[in-house]
């Protein structure tokens, strides 16, 4: 039983032992505790309880981050918002407006522009390495390309129709041309119908910077019937593709890291592996798209059609008499059959109509004829 005017409450002694009292109050409690056996008992009890409670210890955990945690971290890293003060935004906006007003705007070439008048596409970080091959692009050129997006990326195409009197040399000239310009042949088709002009259709790819020179050179192969050049700006497409590719690669890297730590359940690990497969597929697809796009930028396409200037040939060698007779007989027979068939076809085609009109007009005409005859009599 506590004395009525006890200067210190027991829970205050507890507070003193727990370090919860202010400095002054703690000093008072310490002084009081030294001389109060009752409070010393309370303090002893509290220490005993604390000591006994410490006997309940939990085992050490080998807790590692599970996939959900790693994914949440990865997601947070990928969408971490920029915390920028409003005045910074205002400053950035003002600077942007000034830049827009100060820098002359560059118009991207539109379809149908004369590409020869425009500068070559852009500086590449790595030069396309030429290969001495005709079919297929130079190895390593498209793959290694990466662009600094400070000027429009343009994929150029041109078409050229020529007529030549020296068709025999066209094929060889094209091969020489491709070797010289480090280009390649995407497709080639030559037709040589009997009794008609031969023609060559080819799809040529030459380095974009060489396009004007290449076109001039090709025109020497014959007379130009028609020419067309165009350019498609693919800057936005390329930038978008690169951004998506970079994001997908980051995601793959993070997922691989998650898989490496693999502390979760088996189903979680399998989920991560499935996700990695999906992302890898996306990366490969986008990689392919990027290579295709890069190839279109680096190599201009020329659709070339060369037609032979046809001269009808005169056959001076006469056929034999028997041959001529045989041909005449065959021709006569064919004409007879043809005539019969033609009459049959005509009858079947026109006959029903003739019969119809005859039936319709016969009686009126006969009546009219008879009246006319009666008047005449």
């Amino acid at each position, binding site marked *: 039983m506590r004395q009525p005017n006890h200067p210190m409450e027991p829970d205050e002694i507890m507070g003193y032992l727990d370090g*919860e009292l202010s400095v002054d109050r703690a000093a008072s409690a310490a002084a009081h505790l030294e001389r109060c056996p009752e409070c010393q008992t309370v303090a002893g009890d509290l220490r005993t309880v604390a000591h*006994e409670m410490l006997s309940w210890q939990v*085992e*050490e955990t080998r807790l590692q981050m599970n996939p959900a945690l790693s994914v949440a971290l990865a997601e947070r890293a990928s969408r971490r918002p920029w915390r920028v003060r409003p005045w910074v935004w205002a400053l950035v906006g003002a600077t942007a407006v000034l830049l827009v007003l100060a820098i002359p705007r560059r118009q991207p070439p539109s379809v149908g522009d004369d590409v020869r008048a425009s500068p070559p596409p852009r500086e590449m970080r790595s030069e396309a390495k030429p290969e001495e091959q005709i079919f297929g692009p130079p190895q390593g050129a498209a793959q290694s390309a990466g662009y600094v997006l400070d000027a429009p990326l343009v994929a150029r195409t041109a078409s050229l129709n020529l007529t030549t009197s020296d068709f025999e040399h066209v094929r060889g000239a094209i091969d020489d041309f491709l070797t010289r310009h480090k280009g390649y042949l995407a497709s080639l088709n030559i037709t040589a119908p009997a009794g008609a002009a031969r023609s060559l259709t080819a799809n040529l790819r030459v380095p974009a910077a060489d396009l004007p020179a290449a076109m001039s050179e090709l025109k020497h192969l014959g007379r130009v019937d028609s020419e067309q050049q165009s350019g498609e700006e693919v800057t936005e497409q390329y930038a978008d593709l690169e951004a998506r590719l970079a994001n997908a690669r980051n995601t793959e890297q993070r997922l691989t890291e998650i898989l490496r730590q693999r502390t979760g359940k088996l189903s979680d690990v399998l989920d991560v592996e499935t996700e990695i497969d999906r992302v890898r597929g996306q990366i490969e697809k986008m990689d392919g798209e990027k290579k295709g796009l890069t190839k279109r930028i680096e190599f201009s396409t020329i659709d070339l059609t060369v037609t032979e200037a046809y001269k009808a040939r005169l056959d001076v060698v006469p056929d034999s008499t028997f041959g001529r007779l045989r041909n005449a007989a065959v021709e006569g027979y064919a004409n007879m059959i043809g005539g019969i068939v033609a009459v049959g076809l005509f009858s079947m085609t026109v006959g029903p109509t003739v019969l119809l009109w005859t039936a319709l007009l016969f009686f009126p005409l006969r009546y009219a004829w008879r009246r006319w005859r009666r008047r005449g009599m």
Partner: protein
Amino acid sequence: MVTDEALMLQFQRGSRDAFDELFARHRQELFGFFRRRLANRERAEDLAQETFLAMIRAISRYQPRALVRTYLFGIAMNLLSAERRRERIDHPTPGAEPAIGASHDEALWVREAMAKLDDVDREILMLREYEQLAYAEIAELLRLPVNTVRSRLFRARMALKSRLKAEEA
């Protein structure tokens, strides 16, 4: 040594290393928090992970107004309440706390004695003894006045002491 609060701010700015350090520092005490209150070890680990997950999701709103460990125990306390609600729905049989009711080690009497305490008294006592929280922090977590925390803590300790004496007798 970088403080927890500084690490939290670094993590808020995007530092993954800061999070790794916080995870390493607090995983054991969070696991202990849940392990002492739940029977299932795996569930305790899951909830410890969920505490960090909640921390990641809320990091953009974090402000260093309290100690990080208090902040984490606040999240843990909410998760524990949700877990207990789920347990009550799944297993409506009334009874003591699962972990506290368990009986297979040397701290048996402590757990049995604590199981007999009032729920709030027991929580205050555990937060003080095992999580080493200050009275004010316990008061904030449990939304109680500090004086109430102190008086109930004293009551819980004395109850444990009398049970210990009964055990010894």
